[in-house]
């Protein structure tokens, strides 16, 4: 308060006379906050082109940039069993020459436009996206249309990318986190499940990649019916419709086969510890989990609250325990992986080698406690506030808003999903959290994966007596 008078003179750029009231600082408790701002999210508008392509537009005019995401039903769940990695390879090949452009031309044009061009595939779908300043949008869409509709798949480029991928697979095996990310789904889903193979394939499947299989995969799955294009940014619906129809209106429909349904029942074995040896590793990479629900389950809201309490935020139980109380790790988290078919539940961390067994004890303690005891009111309230009050920030940028709406389009969720989001999250009770914890987290069926230095961690893990230890290779497969 004594500073108030002196303050005015020190202001470098004068403020208008907005008033300055001196107040006593009470630091004994945090300030009472005014009510949060009303939730007002950007609206999504949709239209369907005659060829079945759904167009969704979100107008955001703050900065003259546009984010375009074309979602195609061509994900790795559709990989033939003899060709794991075909979907991601096909997505990569889209950029290796298209229309009149060579592979280098595609890259050169994207950079020249200041456009971030991406083509990729996950298990549930493929995508081609471009993020570009508004004034380059038309040229960027020309490029995107070439890449998606007119890929060349030249033999020479197939061979080039095949060799590059073979080398990248070697590199991938040096990275313990990559090893865990490939091995864990292989263990949880089993190798016959559409989600059980490595996204980027294997050495032998890579060696077999050829033009015919890529072209056939493309012909079958890259079709406008079942595809959606999301345009977010400094455009109007009418403008977007005109620009998209001119480039994608002639894209031919096709008979896209139904999304695979898991004919093979995934393994439901009793709790097992899988160990992948990484001699000399400074940390052990830990993954604990099992199959999870589909993204469209009505329980998803309760699961979001549950996961926020357990391992979705900094103050979540796993991180508070393993990092902030014990210092075993730089961060411990959990996630319900959203999928069209069965998803997965996974708890994860990289922990210091010497505390691998102690970390597993704490993980299992927290994963059992969330089922056994109801969550406290304050903890529940904090998680619900974090999810609902933090929502507007996710829609601040074109890329952020695109990610949120993309999730709705990918899983066939209603486009007014976020209008009801606040109410649905707010309605979740402590009993709901405990119910979904018991239903969707089952410690008796956990697959526990540890990628670490076997000689240092094996005896400690054995002594835990939390299940048999099984050794696996870097692909998560049985060692023969």
């Amino acid at each position, binding site marked *: 308060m004594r500073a108030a008078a002196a303050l005015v003179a020190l202001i470098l750029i004068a403020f208008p006379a907005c008033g300055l009231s001196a107040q006593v600082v009470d*630091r004994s408790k945090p300030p009472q906050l005014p009510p949060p701002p009303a939730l007002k999210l950007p609206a999504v508008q949709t239209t369907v082109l005659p060829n079945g392509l759904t167009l969704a537009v979100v107008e955001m005019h703050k900065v003259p940039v546009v984010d375009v995401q074309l979602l195609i039903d061509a994900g790795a769940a559709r990989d033939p069993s003899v060709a794991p990695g075909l979907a991601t390879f096909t997505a990569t090949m889209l950029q290796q020459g298209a229309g009149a452009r060579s592979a280098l031309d595609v890259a050169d044009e994207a950079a020249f436009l200041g456009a971030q061009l991406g083509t990729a595939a996950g298990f549930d779908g493929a995508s081609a996206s471009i993020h570009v300043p508004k004034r380059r949008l038309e040229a960027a869409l020309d490029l995107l249309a070439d890449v998606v509709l007119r890929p060349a798949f030249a033999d020479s480029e197939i061979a080039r990318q095949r060799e590059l991928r073979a080398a990248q697979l070697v590199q991938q095996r040096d990275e313990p986190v990559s090893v865990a990310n490939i091995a864990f789904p292989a263990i949880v889903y089993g190798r016959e499940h559409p989600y059980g193979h490595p996204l980027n394939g294997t050495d032998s499947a890579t060696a077999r990649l050829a033009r015919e299989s890529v072209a056939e995969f493309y012909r079958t799955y890259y079709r406008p019916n079942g595809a959606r294009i999301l345009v977010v940014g400094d455009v109007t619906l009418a403008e977007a419709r005109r620009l998209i129809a001119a480039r994608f209106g002639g894209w031919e429909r096709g008979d896209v086969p139904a999304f695979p349904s898991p004919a093979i029942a995934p393994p439901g074995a009793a709790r097992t510890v899988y160990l992948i040896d990484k001699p000399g590793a400074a940390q052990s990479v830990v993954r604990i989990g099992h199959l999870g629900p589909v993204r469209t389950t009505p329980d998803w809201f309760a699961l979001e609250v549950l996961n926020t309490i357990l391992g979705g935020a900094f103050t979540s139980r796993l991180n508070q325990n393993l990092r902030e109380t014990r210092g075993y790790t730089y961060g411990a988290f959990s996630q319900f992986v959203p999928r069209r078919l069965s998803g997965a539940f996974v708890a994860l961390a*990289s922990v210091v080698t010497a505390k691998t067994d102690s970390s597993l004890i704490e993980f299992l303690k927290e994963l059992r406690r969330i089922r056994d005891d109801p969550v406290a009111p304050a903890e529940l309230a904090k998680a619900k506030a974090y999810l609902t009050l933090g929502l507007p920030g996710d829609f601040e940028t074109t890329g952020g808003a695109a990610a949120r709406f993309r999730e709705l389009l990918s899983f066939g969720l209603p486009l007014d999903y976020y209008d009801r989001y606040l109410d649905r999250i707010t309605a979740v009770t402590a009993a709901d959290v405990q119910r979904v914890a018991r239903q969707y987290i089952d410690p008796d069926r956990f697959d526990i994966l540890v990628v670490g230095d076997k000689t240092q961690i094996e005896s400690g893990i054995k002594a835990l007596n939390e299940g048999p230890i099984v050794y696996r290779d870097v692909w998560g497969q049985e060692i023969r």
Partner: protein
Amino acid sequence: MTRIATATAVLLGLWSACPPVRLSAQSLRVPYQTFTLPNGLQVIVHEDHSVPVVAVNTWYHVGSSDEKPGRTGFAHLFEHIMFMGSQHVPTGEFDRLLEAAGGDNNGSTTEDRTNYYEDGPANALPLMLYLDADRMGFLLPEMTVEKVDLQRGVVQNERRQSYENRPYGLAEENILQRLYPANHPYHWPVIGSMADLQAATLEDVRQFFRTYYTPNNATLAIAGDITAQDARQLVQRYFGDIPRGPAMTRTPPPPVPVAGVVRAVLEDRVQLPRVYDAWHTVKAFSPDDATLDVLANVLAGGRSSRLYRRLVYELQIATDVVAFQDGSRIDGKFEVYATARPGHDLGELQRVIDEELGKLADQGPTPREVERAQNTVEAQFLSRMERVGGFGGKADQLNYYNYFVGTPDYFQKDLERYRRVTPAAVQRAVRAYLSPPHRVVLSVVPQGKPELAVKEGATP
């Protein structure tokens, strides 16, 4: 400049601050107001009412370059300790209170500065300032050995996770050791060494706090759906009575000698060897800094760049190649690295890198290559205008420009640096800075295979 005229129109549209500010047309601007409290805390306020969020971003002008011998990594360890509670905010409450208000936070440390942010709904601004003020003014009364020990363990795990257990993760500290002399403040990495982290004491924490964590060594940027006068009142309320600290003096860094070619070999748990070339260059915002950024883009920015095309696409002897100018506050370096494919050795890669550098030195880049890099940079500038918070959001950028060039709204001037770069300037920069006889050449090779390092004869 006409190229970003659209940006101006849009940005003007959302500027509705308390005092109307007249902006010159045709420019990329982030209007702000600034004032300084009597205790020396400088405050920068930017109104953006497009989304009901607010970002609070604090820069303390201290980084790893201020560390004492035997205490490398301390500035970053201290950043972690700043979250461990203060006199009125018990341990853990900083994060809990923010999350319960829908907010997020983080901090980061570089050679030059330490920054902290809180992002969240606009109504949470008083809480954010209350929390930040408490740790600026009242950290030490509740500081204990246990808190230091706990975050020491977390940071040591951060070092394990991000450096030791990551392939090639220890390359950078090996380069710095050789590029800068032992008495230069950029000689060691921000993360520090395990031994020095282990040696840090509670008394170090007290000393460091009193020296560097003072209002007169900090700037506070607030951006978002708030009014400048509300922000000013709240800042005054929570920070006004924090006492000024001692004035800061820094000794100028020692010169970096030109040392010829320095070769080093690092054995790592990798299958594919990688070669790093590192040159001493210039600090951020030096006349040649933007030119070197453009040069890095010409060399390895994307799949149409020169080195990617030769090494990965045509010859197929590398899996990847990266180049960057790293201009920091008191000095800078330029790096190129590439990873060999199975069956190829680092000598092959190094020869091609040197060939391409030679071509650029002889002929310079094409006008299109320079324009391509400029367009990429311009697009990045635009996208950075989308967000008020987080690392690299508008609040963080206002603090960055304020500390590095003394003008918070330097966005347009910064972009103009890149627009002014010419092919001839890039050619001069290659000749002036990327001379093959003056660099650090680090080979990272599989354990037990030092013979895979770049050989003496492979480089001029």
